[in-house]
């Protein structure tokens, strides 16, 4: 699986940076757990497709739907470019 497209999304609040990462395949539960390794995961399984949200120690919020092709990542304002670069490097290792 590869990253197909990265899109900057609207954010009308505090200047955080929200990006959508679209993949060539779907994000399954194992991929979700891999992204959440060592981080805080909220998992909501009672929707038709489970929703998850990951809060990382770097201050990122990652959310997605199990079985969908994309995730949304909110980066904090502080050190945003470095954190984005680090996240993308780690993400590529998981794909």
């Amino acid at each position, binding site marked *: 699986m590869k990253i197909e497209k990265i899109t900057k999304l609207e954010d*009308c*609040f505090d200047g955080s940076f929200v990006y959508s990462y679209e993949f060539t395949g779907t994000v399954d539960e194992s991929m979700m757990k891999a992204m959440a390794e060592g981080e805080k*995961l909220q998992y909501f399984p009672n*929707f*038709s497709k489970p*929703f998850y*949200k990951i809060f990382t120690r770097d201050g990122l919020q990652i*959310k997605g*739907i199990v*079985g969908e092709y994309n995730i949304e990542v909110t980066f904090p304002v502080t050190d945003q470019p470095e954190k984005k670069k680090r996240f993308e490097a780690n993400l590529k290792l998981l794909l």
Partner: protein
Amino acid sequence: MILMANSSSKKEMNPNSKPTPIYLNNAATSFPKAPGLGKEVASLMSACPKHPGRAATKGEDILYTCRQEVARLINTNNPNRIVLCKSSTEALNIAICGIDLHGSTVVTTAMEHNSVLRPLYRLEHLKKISLIIVGCTDQGRVNEAEWKQAIINYTPRLVVLNHASNVTGAVNNAESLLGFARKNGALTLLDASQTMGIITVDSTQIPADMITFTGHKYLLGPTGTGGLYVKEGLSLEPVIVGGTGIHSDLKTMPPEMPQKLEAGTPSVPLFGGLLHALKWAASQPEYHLNTAKYLSKLETGLKSIGARQVNVQGSRTLVVSFHLPGWDNEDISYILDNNYSIISRFGLHCAPLIHRYIDSSSKGTIRFSLSRFTREEEIDTTLEAMKDFRQ
């Protein structure tokens, strides 16, 4: 660490199915548009261009006919007082910046959209105006006593009033509020972006010197269309200057309306689309009964799952604004979109000040906004989906 929540069994549903979207974001832009709109715009895009007023051409002057239809809608008899713009934002800028406000006070409200607030903030920042912002009620309707007091205290040159809030749907009593302002010497500007097409905006009843509107919301026209009505006798200075096709030998914009305020080549196909939508809506006036019923059903259903709603009484548009304790608005919107193909809107809705007055979360509200095309089964499906958020 894995936190489990909502651990009841999964719903039986094909996870790969993509149902037709349920579109509940009509206060942002309407969908679907007037039947046949796309075809009409496409036909005009591929037709030999006509530049009304700029060359000897035969056939219908689409821009003028569009002005006529807008004039009919707001009940004014001079279509040349309708300035066609690309958006309500552009129209508001032309109105606000076209008046000599130097050294004067402007009164507006906490209900306003940034399309009003930002032009006014800019004039305030440039020290051209003093800006007074009147508060509103917990329904998102202007506080009438405070409005009247502000007008008495500050004798504004201009007042700007939102006809209806895009956040709560509460409709203001424009007749009374603008009437009071005008009686006290103010010029009056009404932002009818959220009402044109669903609430009567009658220029003979509402004492507005200027009215702005957008074509792509409840008028069911294309994005890229909007306009400004300027009352007979009121002269605005143009904000944008350039070619008009008439009086090309002048160094200044021509004095005639609407050309004085319309520099540049207008989009005939898009205004042809708006004209098509206006004519279609004029032929299909009846729909209010159902939408009121659906709004009520939506509100009752949301209340039953613990949603905190802005409880709007009296005159209103087709908007329900709420938040659900325990959930981020953006997550609800995201799940509704990705899991149920229900399109909603979350956040401040470009109206940041109103949230201080209404029951809003720290991140604003979720907004469902209906249209004349919303069907009861779409409301039912939405409420079924919302039940999955119960914790």
